[in-house]
């Protein structure tokens, strides 16, 4: 299979179409405009439907309608637009519908900036909408990984009947890298007999709904959802471990920040300092199990994020007091440099901290 040089945003669109997504509803916002623009060009060619909604709120509700009607559907946006979608995402999770939502994160809060960031970690993993719900959050670190995860996301969404979030950032969206489109591992998917397709007089009506006015029924519903989420925690955790053996410091970083961290690790190796990396690929469920692999020789854990510190909370829970946890980050759209991370590591092992 040949490789194609593609811009991240366009590769995400191409991956969705390859995975059978035929419906896309979105709205312009920097830095992800190439996703709706790609879908506007390409979906009609495969008999799909692209529609630019009047707002991100309208778009997520169009997704809700399409998903409830049995389709593979996607939307994309960036931080302030994803904030608008939270109500819709809560409804989609409550109604147990599958869909893929792509967030190319930018600086915040509010209108913020257009440069890349990782300051939507809480929004993605804690869920900005109301209620007890969860969704799997994939954090690609390259355009190829974004393609692979988007293609799998549609399988996973259908398998669990749940929204799946792809958390990228402006760098993943804008940079160009070579990609191959490989078939994802297909899951055993039951037919969508719950979807609203018209009863044709042959079955009882299907209702897509998140309202359970009887509190006992609502609790039962939430416990069912909780059992589903427990299965996700059991089966869907993904992470990369890199250089953990004999590492003096273990960095925890995801997405493009993990690539900067790998450069810092290489620089440290030149100076004889052994540094490892745990790279969560699913931010939810968080790869707690990876932290059991940290060796006794490791002095400390350093979380590096493009935020003022959000994933660090989950890192501390996973480390569970076994090692000190430090933080280094840049925010507002600024990107950490390998040299700055090297300095932090030296401070940690030099005992300045």
């Amino acid at each position, binding site marked *: 299979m040949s490789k194609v040089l593609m811009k991240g945003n366009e590769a995400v669109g191409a991956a969705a179409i390859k995975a059978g997504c035929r419906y896309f509803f979105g709205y*312009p916002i*920097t830095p992800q*405009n190439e996703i709706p623009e790609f879908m506007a060009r390409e979906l009609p060619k495969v008999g799909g439907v692209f*529609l*630019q909604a*009047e*707002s*991100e709120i309208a778009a997520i509700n169009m997704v809700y309608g399409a998903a409830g009607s049995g389709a593979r559907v996607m939307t994309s946006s960036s931080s*302030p637009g994803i904030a608008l979608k939270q109500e819709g995402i809560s409804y989609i999770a409550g109604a147990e519908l599958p869909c893929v939502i792509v967030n190319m994160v930018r600086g915040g809060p509010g209108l913020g900036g257009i440069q890349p960031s990782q300051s939507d970690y809480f929004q993605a993993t804690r869920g900005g909408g109301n209620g007890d719900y969860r969704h799997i959050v994939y954090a690609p670190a390259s355009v190829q990984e974004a393609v692979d995860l988007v293609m799998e996301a549609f399988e996973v969404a259908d398998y669990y009947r749940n929204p799946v979030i792809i958390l990228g950032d402006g760098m993943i969206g804008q940079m160009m890298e070579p990609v191959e489109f490989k078939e994802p591992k297909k899951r055993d998917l039951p037919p969508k007999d719950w979807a609203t397709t018209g009863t044709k007089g042959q079955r009882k009506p299907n209702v897509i709904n998140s309202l359970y006015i009887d509190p006992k029924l609502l609790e039962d519903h939430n416990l069912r959802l909780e059992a589903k989420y427990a299965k996700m925690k059991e089966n869907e955790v993904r992470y990369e471990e890199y250089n953990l053996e004999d590492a003096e410091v273990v960095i925890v970083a995801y997405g493009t920040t993990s690539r900067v961290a790998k450069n810092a690790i290489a620089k440290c190796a030149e100076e004889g300092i052994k540094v490892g990396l745990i790279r969560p690929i699913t931010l939810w469920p968080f790869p707690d199990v990876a932290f059991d692999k940290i060796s006794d020789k490791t002095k400390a854990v350093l979380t590096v994020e493009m935020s003022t510190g959000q994933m660090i909370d989950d890192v501390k829970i996973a480390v569970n007091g076994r090692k000190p946890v430090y933080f280094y980050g840049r925010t507002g759209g600024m990107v950490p440099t390998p040299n700055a991370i090297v300095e932090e590591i030296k401070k940690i092992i030099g005992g300045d901290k």
Partner: protein
Amino acid sequence: MAIVFEKTKGLTEKPFHYCPGCTHGIIHRLVAEVLEELGVLGDTIGVAPVGCAVFAYDYFNVDMHEAAHGRAPAVATGIKRVHPDKVVFTYQGDGDLASIGAGEIVHAAHRGEKITTIFVNNAIYGMTGGQMAPTTLVGQKATTAPYGRDEAHTGKPIRISEMLATIDGAKFVERVSVHDPANIRKAKKAIRSAFEVQLSGKGFSIVEVLSTCPTNWGLTPVEALNWLKENMIPYYPLGNFRKPEEVE
């Protein structure tokens, strides 16, 4: 010689970031001149949109709020209800007002909010790079309508002035253009009348200004003025759609 035209005090010293030939520059100036001539610069609070004019808060020499995309009329409502004696205006593009903000502008007009809205209609999304707007013409190409706007798929463009004129609380609704000096002078008159309606406490006022976007239309600034005249005016007729009896 006497000076007959110089920069108004209603604008700050900051040079505009707009593209060469973008009519935002003309419209900002007209609003600023009107506010200066009415003597209300010190009592004005404006609300900037999300769009090319997002930095409007740096250009008007008055107190300014930034608003979330489409929400300026709601923000202006909050300001005007706290300061009913001040002049409050919103400055919005066609994505901001006619797409995501369609609900907010209808309800500001419906409640008769005593604010003035300057609506810049250039039939496209400028800041984000040329996507289709609710005001994009049928057949017009945009990055999210690469084959041209298809009426069967997304309908015909929305005529905001005609729509808002059906709402009782909208006391002044006029559509103008800025494609030549004569129309620019008429536009300024309409903007002044709109602010006078606010000052007299009658209700909501809006001026829809047909504008160019040379960059995303793929035309030179001069070609863009002609495109506006030949393509936009036939669909978006100029004129007043609602005014209180006293305004000439």
